[in-house]
């Protein structure tokens, strides 16, 4: 069981947990990303998320498929929110379940790491001083897959 979505409304984390939990599962994990008040030393007031929704949904679904191939029969739901979020708002939630805890924990970590590495979603941070800036993780250290890079 895999489901992925890009949503504009607040994410119902408890609903996702309930969705993946079944009578045959014994361990459910959840990763929740929230908007933090400081990034790289600058005071943040909010984050504007945007996505290439059609591809993001496909890429998140592929991550779910890979997680099942690597960690066994996990049930996984990934939702990422877009739009303007305030401090403490949930930007992403990944719920994973399995009969046993190790695969659920492994798949949870795999899914958030892969999501951050390759799902086409962007964030523009808004700062206390009124400035705004698109976050570019590759400006620090490139961790995008080399094979996936186009251009010359």
């Amino acid at each position, binding site marked *: 069981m895999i489901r992925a979505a890009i949503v504009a409304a607040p994410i119902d984390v408890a609903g996702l947990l309930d969705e993946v939990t079944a009578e045959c599962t014994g361990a459910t994990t959840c990763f929740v990303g929230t908007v933090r008040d400081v990034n790289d030393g600058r005071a943040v007031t909010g984050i504007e998320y945007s996505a290439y929704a059609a591809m993001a949904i496909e890429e998140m679904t592929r991550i779910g498929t890979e997680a099942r191939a690597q960690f066994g029969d996990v049930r996984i739901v990934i939702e990422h929110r877009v739009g303007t979020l305030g401090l403490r708002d949930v*930007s992403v939630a990944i719920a994973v379940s399995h009969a046993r805890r190790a695969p659920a924990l492994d798949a949870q970590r795999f899914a958030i790491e892969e999501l*951050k590495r390759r799902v086409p979603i*962007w964030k523009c941070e808004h700062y206390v001083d009124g400035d705004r800036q*698109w*976050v*570019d*993780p590759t400006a620090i250290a490139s961790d995008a*897959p080399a094979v996936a890079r*186009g251009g010359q």
Partner: protein
Amino acid sequence: MTELQVLLFASYAEAFGASAVTVSVPDRGTVEDVVAALRVLPGGHVLPARPLVSVDRRYAPGAVPVHAGQEVALIPPVAGG
């Protein structure tokens, strides 16, 4: 020549001032040709040496051929989560 629409997002959409642009590439052109055509447009100077490109919603290396009717997008550095 083949005309292709290229989807733009986030910082690239702002740089090019549009959410999509149309470029002409040689017949039997590749992702690399698309990037070269984008680079010379107003705003194209923001592109890194090897920007990410997707074709039909999958990341595509530079040598991948592109055809009319495909969904091509230029992907800024991703920052989800």
